């Protein structure tokens, strides 16, 4: 029994049906971790990208160093650090939030590079034209540069969304009951790993396909405002 649901080991289909609700609760946790982690990565990545583009090295270099550090260390280390070390400094977060934060942090390094590349791909002439029209730098960024960078950024970000989803099982090491962890527990207790693990695999495949389809849909519907897709 898990989450109040008992499993029925009397046959194949009864077993499948009985563990489904349990796995779906795990799936919900996986989705939440993905979405929250991705949201953190999007915001933090934008911040890092902006800092890396700063005109003074005093700001740009530390931001670059942080990106490099995050990118070159395993997610697991960052996760353990947040989970086991931060409490020593009086900062204790629930396991789930710690996990989502670790995912967001790790992926912010990647998304910041996506933003940077997307922004740099906008021709220099666009900035110059805005400047020649006396437009303020902030407005130039939000209304001229960013809208043109977004169609270049979206597909790459989508790939990281799928990637984050596939990294969620790492959170099981800090006791988060995401989908794979739930399947393992069911296997431990029923001595039947094949069925729960297969279902998890299928559910992951479905999620990935849906996400990929969503990204493609966005990809074809975003540039309708005349933004050239490169």
């Amino acid at each position, binding site marked *: 029994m898990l989450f109040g649901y008992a499993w029925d080991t009397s046959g194949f289909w009864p077993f499948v049906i009985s563990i489904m609700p349990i796995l779906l609760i795990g799936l919900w946790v996986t989705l939440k971790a993905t979405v929250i982690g991705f949201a953190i990565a999007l915001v933090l990545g934008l911040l890092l990208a902006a800092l890396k583009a700063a005109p003074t090295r005093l700001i740009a270099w530390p931001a670059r160093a942080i990106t490099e550090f995050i990118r070159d260390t395993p997610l697991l280390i960052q996760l353990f650090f947040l989970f086991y070390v931060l409490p020593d400094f009086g900062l204790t977060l629930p396991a789930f939030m710690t996990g989502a934060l670790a995912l967001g942090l790790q992926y912010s390094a990647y998304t910041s590079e996506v933003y940077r590349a997307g922004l740099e791909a906008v021709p220099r002439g666009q900035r110059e*034209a805005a400047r020649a029209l*006396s437009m303020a730098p902030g407005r130039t960024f939000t209304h001229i540069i960013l809208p*043109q960078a977004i169609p270049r950024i979206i597909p790459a970000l989508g790939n990281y969304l799928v990637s984050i989803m596939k990294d969620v099982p790492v959170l099981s090491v800090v006791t988060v009951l995401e989908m794979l962890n739930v399947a393992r527990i069911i296997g431990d207790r029923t001595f039947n790993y094949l069925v729960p693990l297969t279902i998890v695999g299928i559910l992951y495949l479905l999620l990935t396909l849906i996400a990929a389809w969503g990204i493609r849909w966005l990809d074809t519907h975003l540039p309708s405002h*005349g933004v050239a897709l490169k």
Partner: protein
Amino acid sequence: MSREPIIRFDRVSKRFGDFTVLDNLDFQVQPNEKVTIIGPSGSGKSTVLRVLMTLEPINEGVVYVGGDPLWHEYRRNNELSPARGAHLRRMRERLGMVFQQFNLFPHMTVRRNLTEAPRRVLGLSRAEADERAHELLELVNLGNQADKYPGQLSGGQQQRVGVARALMMRPRIMLFDEPTSALDPELVGEVLKVIRQLADTHDLTMLMVTHEMHFARQISDRVCFFDQGRILEQGPPEEILSSPKEARTREFLHAVLNPDE
């Protein structure tokens, strides 16, 4: 010509690394004067326009636009010191620029390309900006294209939008940086026609870099031949284009007018 020049370069130097683009340049333009700049690539002719549009900073000297220093501000004791952002933004409103690659905003309609800056920078209402955009699109013969995106227009049409967009800010000085160089030959005429019309009907100071010698002859009060960051020779178009004194000018003109030799 005793009037105060609207543009004045006072011993201006500009370097990219070891390469000197503008070399102690002295250069003046009178109000309403139409000046064409010609010269080989790397002679600094485009840089003059880009310095004026505040796209490229200078290393030495002072540039004056409308009597005020462009890249400097007066501080206490009337001393010149490097300009801050606010000063540059204010000064920029005196100039408009048409780019070789048009540089229209591809994600905005033609109308929005025109009205975006006047509404945000000059504080025009939507109605005022739309009205002004309508007038200028009529002027460049694109009155019925306001709702299209730049990608739906030909190169010649795009460049005419570029001209209209620069005019929206009501600049006193218009800068044209090789406005027809990126166009297919059959589209050059329509853009030149608009520029000529502009020169005839508006009180504008115009500064143009171009390789269209025939056009330069028609439109300019003065032609300046740039070589190695300086003005080697300047004067009325008939004089410079027909009987230049300098050998370098003759060579250049010969090469431009007889590209297959």
